[in-house]
């Protein structure tokens, strides 16, 4: 009897998980199906839930309609620049906070708190003025520089560097290595999991940013992917061309998805490391 009950529990768990998964995955599936139909078939009744044959022509149409190449290029540039910049800045600062004694090292936590509570939307109006004065509107500067500091990143690397045995640094010092040599040759190679985890977090974040680009960018050659999505979506209100919209959506959601899938393991491990503290 006891064995049976355990088995039944397991079957029930599987059933719940599978049905939840179907519900959660359905919007993507439906979007995918829509992207393969003609405009007419997209409005067929009852709705067609199996793929059609128009995927490539829809993608081509969406690609041309919003100048997809420019959008993807801009989003890639800002997402990669900000990811690399943030990771570099975070590693340097975390190294300072864990390996040196210096005046002002107490600043870490107050600063972390302050930056956490001042997300960009809270300061968007003065920031806009500042960018206008600097002449940075409609440039990559506006889309990258304000994002470069990340206390999330500093804390993530700090947690990890605190677990690295002190003997490593001592041995390096005795062998005559400078701090920067120690950082580059010993600490950095140990940090790849965190680097990959932060890369996923920052890339996804920047790729999906919308509020600030929407304010800082008006020139069509500087638009980012999320803005293109809005253009596709709002161009045909009422009688939406769902096949074209969804074809565009699929293209735009792909880059962050690929990064997440590639570094999925490191991402989960990095997060597990962060929650253990």
């Amino acid at each position: 009897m006891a064995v049976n009950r355990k088995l039944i529990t397991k079957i029930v768990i599987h059933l719940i998980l599978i049905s939840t998964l179907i519900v959660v995955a359905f919007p993507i599936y439906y979007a995918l199906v829509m992207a393969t139909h003609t405009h007419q078939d997209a409005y067929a009744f009852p709705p067609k839930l199996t793929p059609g044959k128009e995927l490539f022509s829809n993608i081509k149409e969406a690609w041309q309609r919003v100048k997809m190449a420019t959008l993807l290029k801009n989003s890639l540039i800002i997402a990669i620049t900000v990811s690399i910049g943030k990771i570099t800045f975070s590693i340097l600062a975390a190294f300072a906070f864990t390996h040196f004694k210096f005046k002002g090292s107490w600043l870490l936590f107050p600063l972390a708190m302050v930056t956490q509570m001042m997300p960009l939307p809270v300061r968007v109006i003065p920031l806009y003025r500042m960018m206008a004065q600097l002449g940075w509107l409609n440039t990559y500067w506006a889309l990258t520089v304000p994002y470069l500091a990340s206390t999330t990143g500093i804390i993530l690397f700090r947690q990890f560097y605190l677990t690295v045995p002190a003997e490593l640094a001592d041995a390096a010092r005795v062998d005559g290595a400078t701090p920067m040599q120690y950082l580059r040759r010993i600490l950095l190679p140990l940090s790849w999991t965190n680097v990959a985890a932060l890369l996923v977090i920052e890339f996804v974040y920047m790729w999906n940013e919308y509020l600030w680009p929407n304010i800082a960018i008006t020139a069509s050659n500087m638009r980012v992917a999320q803005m293109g999505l809005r253009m596709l979506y709002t161009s045909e209100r009422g009688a939406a061309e769902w096949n074209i919209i969804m074809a565009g959506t699929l293209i735009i959601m792909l880059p962050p998805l690929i990064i997440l899938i590639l570094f999925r393991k490191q991402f989960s491990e990095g997060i597990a490391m962060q929650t253990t503290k």
Partner: protein
Amino acid sequence: MDRFPNHRFLPYALVFPSITVIAIFLIYPFGQAIYQSFHRINPVRRQLVYVGWRNYVEMFRSPEYLYSFRNTFIFAVLVIGLGLVISLCIALLTTQNIRGAGFYQVAFVWTYAMSPIIAGVMWSLIFDPSIGLMTHVIGNLTGYWINFFNDTVAAFILVTVASIWVMLGYNIVFFIAGLQNVPHELKEAASIDGATTWQVFWVVTFPMLSPTVAFLVFVNTVYAFFQSFGLVDVVTMGGPNRSTEFLIYKIYKDGFGRMQEGQAAAQSVVLFIIIAIVGAIQIYTSTKSAVYDR
């Protein structure tokens, strides 16, 4: 701590890039926002005029603002409450001792890569007034045909469902990480002592999970108050009848659409205070729970 005592200057150089960006692009503009919130722009002479607390007083007297505040609050509570409960349930099930647990843990992660706008676009297809599946299901069951272009409740539900959906991946990853940190021996000890599964969860698992919960409440609050902007701007444009005009959307409209910078700055300061309170609770919870660390 001090592993390279002969390098006095280096640590300052190492923190310099981060501190500079934080000072110039975070703290300074925020100071400006506070300053602006006590001023208004004189449209004739195009200069700032000091108005004291007027922006704040008028803001809290404005029915429009209070309506936006109320709707944002309801939205946030639904996104945080429902979102976290659903994610925790899924995370709990995927960490049970079942075959394919690893598969499930991965299978739910990917909504993390979706942007709020993508979530909005996908769910607005499902809620589409003419071909949306949800529209047809509800219509056939109740005889009521929803249309989120002019139905305030439908628009609100659409925005909420899309938000919960898009946050699922992130929440589940963190819950799984948190659950895997709960020592097995503790749960076993409790069940040997005769505790039911339910009791083990509330007495052992949940308290150890509280820093994760507090962290996720904070992140989801930030989502509900700020990140939802894209979703609202693209799908509902704050409508119908302002029902989805959340606080951040209103700041955007007042600050950039109506050029009322002072009024919008005052709204930003209020948003900061809300986030600061939630953030302080999170930090308090995660330091208090250090007791459980050992």
